[in-house]
């Protein structure tokens, strides 16, 4: 909203500061000025205002002048509302007034009408034209400009009808369902039974409080007019404004709660302006007031304010004397409240009609703090005798994150949503994804049931930009369930492509493979205290592995018999769908299940003082024999002194399609009690070779 300081100073002549200081003082009191623009010598400044939605009373010059009067302790002179009465009016005071009927008293609380005859419709000149130029407000005609001028001046919207287009008096009623009205913007609108219209006996004239109608608008030929100034129910106006997608200056004010007592004032101001260009009043102001609406607004019951409560909420001020009764009285009185002292420090406060946002004691406390100045309060710290508690899985979460970072994975965040197609492909359970009612886009139609599609999108966008070495992880929420109940769980996704992370000319990098990813997962899981962890996969015909994983290069992770996640190479078919030419590894870990495991607590063993003996076996196995079988067989031998066991080298000749591979098996034997004798080690070796032989292995010659 734009405001002219020259106009403010007309209403409050004594403002003791320059425009910049005025802007700062207003801003610090919550009447925010975003910009001050000098209009040149003697013309003051243009203020660009940002008034919060609850302060509709301050969205005009007089309202801001009232705020300034409270800040500077000045009295705000009332507006001149005198209207020159014509001789005819004086004579005809016994004649029946212009007929106005409110048929919808729940939606229209007050309606004033004033008839002006023999007016002259012409362009605005003088002060009004100058001020509109400063505000960049379009000039239309003296009648329309007068209504605009008045709401800019004091906030009350008004409307002027061409009296000669009206058939009978004014009726404020609900529209008939399907009733047609062409509004001032030229649009033919079909009305709803909840819309309020200003009508004559025959037809709707205007969408009440929102926009006037085409048929009764002011034209150059208009001679006689009716000036409308009314109070409409905020919720009703808001409904109509939303239904018709019609947000106007008038609806903006009415839907936030206009001043119930402003209608006669605004009517007088508009009439004075029009009459200045010719014409005369016909009869007195017709003012129809709905008592219930007045009781809800202008005549609300006083509210109790205790100064001790003000102090309990606001606390300590920098000045030692704090919030005194005189501060309370002067602030609230300046804002238009009436204070009656009930007992020591207790007031009954009558609220001004223009401040419908004030309803409770706390609202008054806020006004006192605001006008006193927030920055005049001290900085104190509250005392606290509660306890500090951590989230139950805070440590686990931090450990997952720090471990992945240390292993070279970069943390990412992706969209919370997934496409319907991805939701089907990646949901851990079929038909468990939840749809959005008003999605951001078609690609974001579902709450993500998995972090993997988001991860693949991020991998893809990197690869498309020729960023080929990617290692990402995301920790976030996944959603499943129904539109009646949504279940949220924490999950982890990892995604990688390109070369290994080490950087430098000394060791050539190599392409990342399945085992790099598996290694990170093993490291991660080693931080947790699960007793057993293993990796397996299901045969493709069981359809138990996620469809997005390469069936030959993926694994399920199982910890203490609970499936914790899946990972591996992206299925080539899915890679093709996503146009990923590079080999990509992805995985998802169900953190809610992992977090059930406490973190590993290190426990040390006595270190053996006796020499360890190393034995390596160079073996050849049929391709079908897997490491886990060898490991199980070796562990099954029950050799207590076998303290370490690892595959040290594996060689498969892919080119020649051999049916066998060679394996260098490393073993370490050690006893905690004695030095092992050569024949003991020899015995272990023979048992190992025999066991390997049973699995089809033989020593390489």
């Amino acid at each position, binding site marked *: 909203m734009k405001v002219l300081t020259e106009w403010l100073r007309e209403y409050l002549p004594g403002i003791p500061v320059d425009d910049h200081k005025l802007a700062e003082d207003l801003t610090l009191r919550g009447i925010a000025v975003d910009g001050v623009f000098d209009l040149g010598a003697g013309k003051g400044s243009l203020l660009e205002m940002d008034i*919060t*939605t609850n302060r509709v009373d301050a969205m005009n010059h007089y309202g801001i002048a009232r705020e300034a009067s409270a800040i500077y302790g000045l009295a705000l002179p009332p507006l001149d509302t005198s209207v020159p009465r014509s001789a005819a009016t004086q004579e005809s005071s016994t004649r029946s007034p212009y007929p106005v009927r409110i048929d919808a008293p729940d939606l229209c609380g007050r309606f004033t009408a004033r008839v002006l005859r023999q007016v002259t419709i012409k362009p605005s000149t003088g002060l009004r034209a100058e001020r509109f130029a400063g505000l960049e407000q379009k000039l239309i005609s003296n009648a329309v400009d007068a209504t605009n001028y008045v709401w800019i001046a004091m906030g009350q919207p008004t409307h002027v009808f061409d009296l000669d287009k009206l058939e009978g008096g004014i009726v404020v009623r609900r529209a008939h369902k399907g009733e047609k009205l062409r509004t001032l913007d030229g649009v033919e609108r079909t009305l709803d039974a909840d819309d309020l219209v200003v009508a004559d006996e025959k037809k709707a004239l205007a969408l009440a409080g929102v926009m006037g109608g085409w048929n009764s608008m002011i034209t150059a030929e208009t001679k006689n007019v009716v000036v409308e100034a009314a109070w409409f129910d905020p919720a009703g106006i808001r409904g109509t404004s939303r239904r018709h997608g019609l947000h106007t200056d008038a609806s903006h004010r009415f839907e936030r709660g206009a001043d119930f007592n402003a209608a006669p004032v605004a009517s007088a101001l508009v009439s004075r302006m029009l009459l200045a260009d010719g014409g005369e009043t016909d009869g007195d102001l017709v003012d129809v007031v709905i008592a219930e609406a007045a009781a809800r607004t202008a005549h609300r019951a006083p509210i109790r304010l205790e100064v001790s409560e003000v102090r309990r909420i606001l606390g300590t001020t920098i000045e030692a004397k704090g919030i005194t009764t005189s501060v309370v009285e002067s602030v609230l009185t300046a804002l238009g409240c009436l204070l009656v002292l009930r007992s020591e420090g207790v007031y009954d406060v009558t609220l001004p009609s223009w401040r419908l946002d004030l309803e409770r004691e706390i609202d008054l406390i806020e006004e006192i703090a605001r006008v006193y100045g927030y920055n005049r309060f001290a900085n104190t710290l509250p*005392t606290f005798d509660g306890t500090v508690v951590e989230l139950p899985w805070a440590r686990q979460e931090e450990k997952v994150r720090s471990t*992945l970072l240390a292993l070279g994975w970069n943390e990412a965040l992706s969209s919370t949503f997934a496409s319907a197609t991805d939701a089907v492909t990646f949901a851990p359970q079929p038909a468990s994804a939840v749809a959005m*009612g008003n999605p951001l886009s078609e690609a974001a139609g579902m709450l993500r049931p998995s972090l993997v599609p988001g991860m693949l999108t991020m991998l893809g966008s*990197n690869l498309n930009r020729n960023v080929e070495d990617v290692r990402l992880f995301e920790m976030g929420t996944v959603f499943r369930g129904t539109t009646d109940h949504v279940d949220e769980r924490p999950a982890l996704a990892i995604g990688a492509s390109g070369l290994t992370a080490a950087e430098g000319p000394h060791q050539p990098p190599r392409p990342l493979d399945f085992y790099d990813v598996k290694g990170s997962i093993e490291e991660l899981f080693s931080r947790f205290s699960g007793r057993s962890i293993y990796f397996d996969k299901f045969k493709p015909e069981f359809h138990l592995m996620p469809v997005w994983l390469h069936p030959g290069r993926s694994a399920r992770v199982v910890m203490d018999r609970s499936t914790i996640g899946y990972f591996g190479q992206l299925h080539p078919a899915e890679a093709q769908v996503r146009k990923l030419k590079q080999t990509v590894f992805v995985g998802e870990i169900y953190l809610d299940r992992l977090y059930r495991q406490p973190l590993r607590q290190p426990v040390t063993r006595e270190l053996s003082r006796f020499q360890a003996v190393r034995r390596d076996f160079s073996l050849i196995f049929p391709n079908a024999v897997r490491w886990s079988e060898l490991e199980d067989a070796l562990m099954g031998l029950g050799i207590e002194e076998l303290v370490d066991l690892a595959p040290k080298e594996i060689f498969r000749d892919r080119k020649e399609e051999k049916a066998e591979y060679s394996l260098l098996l490393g073993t370490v034997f050690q006893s905690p009690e004695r030095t092992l004798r050569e024949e003991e080690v020899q015995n272990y070796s023979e048992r190992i070779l025999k066991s390997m032989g049973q699995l089809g292995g033989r020593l390489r010659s």
Partner: protein
Amino acid sequence: MDHLVDEFCVDNFSEDALERSFARLEEMLRTEFARIKTDEDRERFRLRWVGRKTGGLTRLSAQLAGGRPELKRVSGKLFNTLKQRFQEHYHLWELNPFSPYALAREAIDITLPGTRTLLGAEHPIIRTMNEIVAVFQRMGYSVGIGPEVETDYYNFESLNFPPNHPARDTQDTLVVANQERRPLRDRLLMRTHTSPVQIRTMERQPPPVRIVIPGKVHRNDASDATHSPIFHQVEGLCVGENVTFSDLKGTLDHAMKEFFGAAVKTRFFPSFFPFTEPSADVQISCIFCGGKGCRKCKHSGWIELLGCGMVDPSVFGFVQQKQPDYDPRKISGFAFGMGVERIAMMKYGVSDIGQFYSGDMRFFKQFGSGGRLA
């Protein structure tokens, strides 16, 4: 030569005396050799013993030449042995595996870059959020979290958003499908702020409460350089007896100094939020120019950072349906909230909010290891 007695001068009156003198010189040779640490030491050692003009052995040779003839055979033999010892020692240095000669052959180009195992980069949003949370944890706040899909009751109604409040428009809120037939309070939506966790926490525990709430929130906003439909907030809530507006001011002033440095100042403006009253916006003095005015603070010297206020009594009223101890006549409290993206953008000079959600490795790497050293 300056000294009175030449160390290399021998006693050559008798065979015995000669032998004693040469034994002394050999001992001296060994001692001096043992002291050699560098190539320069070794060169000084050579010049002292066998240098063409100044060498001690040269002078000794001259002395012996003028000695008694009957001792010449013995002295010649002793001299040659000593000279041979010198040669042995001198060359022994080159054979020493710890000698610079030997070690120089193992030298490498230490100016080549090291082999770095690159650490992953923390996400700047998560990092910023954790830093903010840590400040409040040190001030006695527990961490609270809550669901990202919320009901209308927790996201709006209990926070004093009246049924017609503009924030409830679906144009601002992302809603779950098929909610139309359900009662308004049960309808599911993506939380638009982390404030529902305030209500949930108070419903669970009686006062006093101090919680800090980090989390992801959603709005149905179009994306541009500074707006994202997905963003993060950190909120806080402090409720108890005698918690005042000046406590709110002091708490945030202290927290901002902890987070941005002790020189930072705070300034409070009246504002409006449905769930607090009085409400305030908080500015901090510009962390780039110290308040003098610069491009980042639009030459105002101040940067807007937080929204806050005293918890509205009607919010306590909603909570009292489950926890009667939240009687607004007896207790009071304050709440505050801030946008993490905005702070991270400011702190790290990020101009496009979309980068946080792009997964772009080039962007992330700036926050991790592997960068060039200054």
